[in-house]
């Protein structure tokens, strides 16, 4: 009997872990503010062409595969990036473009 209970608990824990790794926290676990933010972003996302939606989904897959501390680092960095004045943000994007084009391997 105990063995069956233990197996059931392990299976339950595994399914919860799998669900969390698939989509993160479930909708009902988000705060109203988080739901609001997700909803607004979702509405914009739905206006993008399907190909572009897929591109964002692919990036999300990569984001999800990152360790939590790396995800948090990106969130913090995003706050810094967003805090930049519009002109500096534009300059940064331009610098980023050149950085991507720079010759590699030296």
């Amino acid at each position, binding site marked *: 009997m105990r063995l069956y209970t233990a197996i059931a608990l392990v299976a339950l824990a595994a399914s919860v872990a799998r669900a969390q790794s698939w989509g993160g926290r479930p909708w009902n676990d988000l705060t109203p*503010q988080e739901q609001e933010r997700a909803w607004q972003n979702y509405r914009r996302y739905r206006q993008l062409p399907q190909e572009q939606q897929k591109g964002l989904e692919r990036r999300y897959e990569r984001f999800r595969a990152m360790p939590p501390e790396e995800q948090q680092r990106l969130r913090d960095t995003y706050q810094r990036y967003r805090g930049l004045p519009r002109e500096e943000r534009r300059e940064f*994007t331009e610098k*980023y473009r050149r950085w991507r084009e720079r010759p590699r391997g030296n």
Partner: protein
Amino acid sequence: MRCGSAQKLIVAAVDGEITPERRRDLDEHVAACTDCLAELRATESLLGALESLPQEAEVPSLVEAATLRRMRVAAAEEQERKERRWGWFPAPVLAAAGVAVLALTINLRPEGRQGTPQPAMTPEATGVRQVARAPEPPAPPPAPRQEVAVATADDALPPADPPPDLAAAPELFMNLPIIRNMEKLEHFEAITMVELPPNG
């Protein structure tokens, strides 16, 4: 370049993530294709709007304030409309109509008289009541105010039952601006610090 390839490049192009050659190809294409140009402009504006969204809980209070403000304005407009509608009636006429309606309502209303047939339930009496009711100012909550509230909620507030794709991966949408700028953010420090040769 064909439209299909251009469409695939647009988000990356807006984020500055394609090579100059590809960008040139895309620019040449959109210069000749109004659909793709419109797509590019729309994406720029959409993704710009995405980025301008606050990450923290500023939106709900703003939305709440805006909603309340709109509702107050709508209520005031409705009140004004009501006053305008009845304002031209001389006050004594309105008062007399009010008294007549009140008297008829008290005498003829069927509530509290269930089970016993009353004159108020006869077709004649009902007809009198309908005629007498005509000048009564509309009492129920005004429709326009309701519409404003619903439209605002539809626009800004998440539905009670989120769409399946939103419910399946809410964190994708919560973190969408980060995901969109992911590569930029991953190398933020390096890009900030690096000295790059000048353009050209």
